[in-house]
Structure formats: C-alpha cells, structure tokens
C-alpha cells in the first residue's frame, strides 16, 4: 500500500469527510466505476466459493451413501448365500463334530509321534554330550 493510502486508512471519519469536501484533492475520473466493479467481483467470488463448498458437500454425501449402499448390499448377498445345515438335531451335529476332530487328530498323530520321537533322541544325545563334556 502507498503511504497516502495507509494514512487514509488510519484517519478518523470526520477528517475523511473534511478531505472529501476539499476541492483541491484530485479524484480519479473512473474511481467510482473501479470501486463498483471491485465490489461486484468480490460478491461474485463469494457466491462461487459458497457454491464450491456446497458442491463438495454434495459429492461427499453422495459418495458416502454409495459406499454404504454397496457395503450393505455385499453383506446381504453374503448372508443370502449361506448353505443349509446338514443336521436338524444338535446332538447329531455334535456327534459329527466329535468324529471330525477325531479324524483330524488321527491324521495328525503319525507326524506328532515322529516329532516326539525326535525330541527324545535329541534329549538323549544332549544328555550323552553333557556327560562327555563333564568328564573332560
């Protein structure tokens, strides 16, 4: 800002009125038009920024609703695709469950037994090595 403009900005109103009445002060010819067009431009800009914010809000809400709708649809479809229980009676279902666990453990047993055997061998070897190192 120029020094004069800065001083004018700080001046109280009665002094500004006195300056306005002073005929020796030269007023630019197109000052009024400039001021009016500045006011009009700032009004247009403020309308546009409100419109932009409203547009962003609309987009966000639409996007959120679309995402929510897709998620709900996905879960509904997933639920609709559930198979039917094989058994009607919980006791029969329990027997089948027990058979299943027994089957799994029977299949696991050979592998687990081999690991147990190996760990016994490692333990024995460790004990023998311990004796050898102690005797030295």
């Amino acid at each position: 800002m120029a020094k004069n403009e800065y001083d004018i900005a700080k001046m109280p109103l009665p002094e500004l009125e006195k300056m306005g009445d002073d005929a020796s002060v030269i007023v630019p010819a197109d000052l009024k038009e400039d001021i009016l067009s500045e006011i009009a431009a700032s009004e247009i800009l403020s309308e546009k920024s409100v419109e932009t914010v409203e547009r962003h809000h609309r987009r966000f809400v639409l996007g959120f609703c679309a995402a929510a709708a897709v998620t709900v649809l996905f879960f509904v479809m997933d639920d609709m695709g559930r198979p039917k229980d094989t058994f009607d009676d919980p006791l029969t279902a329990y027997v089948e469950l027990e058979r299943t666990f027994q089957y799994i453990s029977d299949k696991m047993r050979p592998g687990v037994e081999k690991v147990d055997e190996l760990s016994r061998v490692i333990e024995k070897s460790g004990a023998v090595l311990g004796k050898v190192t102690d005797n030295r």
Partner: protein
Amino acid sequence: MNHVILTVAMLFFTAAAYSQDGKDIYMKYSGKEGVSAVYISPSMFKMIGKIPDIHLTQGNMNLAPIVKSLDGLYLIDSGNSAVNADLLSEVKKMVSSGKFELVMQAKEDGETMNIYTLDDGDTVRSFVFCAVSEGECTFICLDGNIPKAELEKLMASAMAEQ
C-alpha cells in the same frame, strides 16, 4: 458425479477381489457327484452349546470349551478324481492369501496332509485341514474365535485317546 461413479466402481472391484473362504469352497463342491458334504451353522453350534453336559454323554472328548466359540464347520469329502484336483487348487488359493500359516504337513503312504490356521493373537479365526491321497480329497474348515490353548488341549486329548 464422475468421482462418485469412480468410487462406486472401485468398491465393486474391492468386493470382487474378496478372497475365498470355507463357505465359498463348500458352496462350490457340496452338490457334486461323489462328494459328501457337512455344514454346521453358527445357530446349530449355539444349540449344541446349550445341551447340558454334552461331553459326558458322547465319547471322552470334551468339545464343550470350544463349541461356543465356533461359527461354522465346512467339510467336503470327495472321491471324485475330477473334483479332487479342482478342490485342491481352490484350497491352495484360499490359504495362499497370505494370512494363513502352515502349521503342519505330513506325508505318509501316499497321503499328504496339511493344516493351516489363521490366527489373531491367541485366537484361531480359521482352522483348515486338507488331506489328499489317491482318489480322495478331504477339506475341513472350522471358523470361529477359538482360543488357541483350548484347541491345542483338545487335539492333545484326542491323540491321547488311542
């Protein structure tokens, strides 16, 4: 508007890329020829859990501690060679999603057995068993929030039975 369409399209792709689970494999193969299938739903597990002293009436294995934590049992037992190869491929796809851990593999007498678990800390969210031999393929999937310690205790007691 274009952004909304793009977002919805991306969500659909995400849904499409949703990985397979035990239910999907069960639904695909349960109706095929030469295939036996068993499904126990979360509701049925709740009913099983309400039966008083069930472990005292049926065998020596005590499943009571984990029954209430089970959400589903999917069992496919196939004697159909055409189905077996496809089923095995689907199981491999399921467990290779990166979240499953191979906890045991055993090969004996021409049979290969694999056990995978999907863990969440001290909880097993999914237990997958797959055994393949000449002409037969068995797939078992247990879903739920199974305490790891309880599952290990159960397996140990089942193996000690014999």
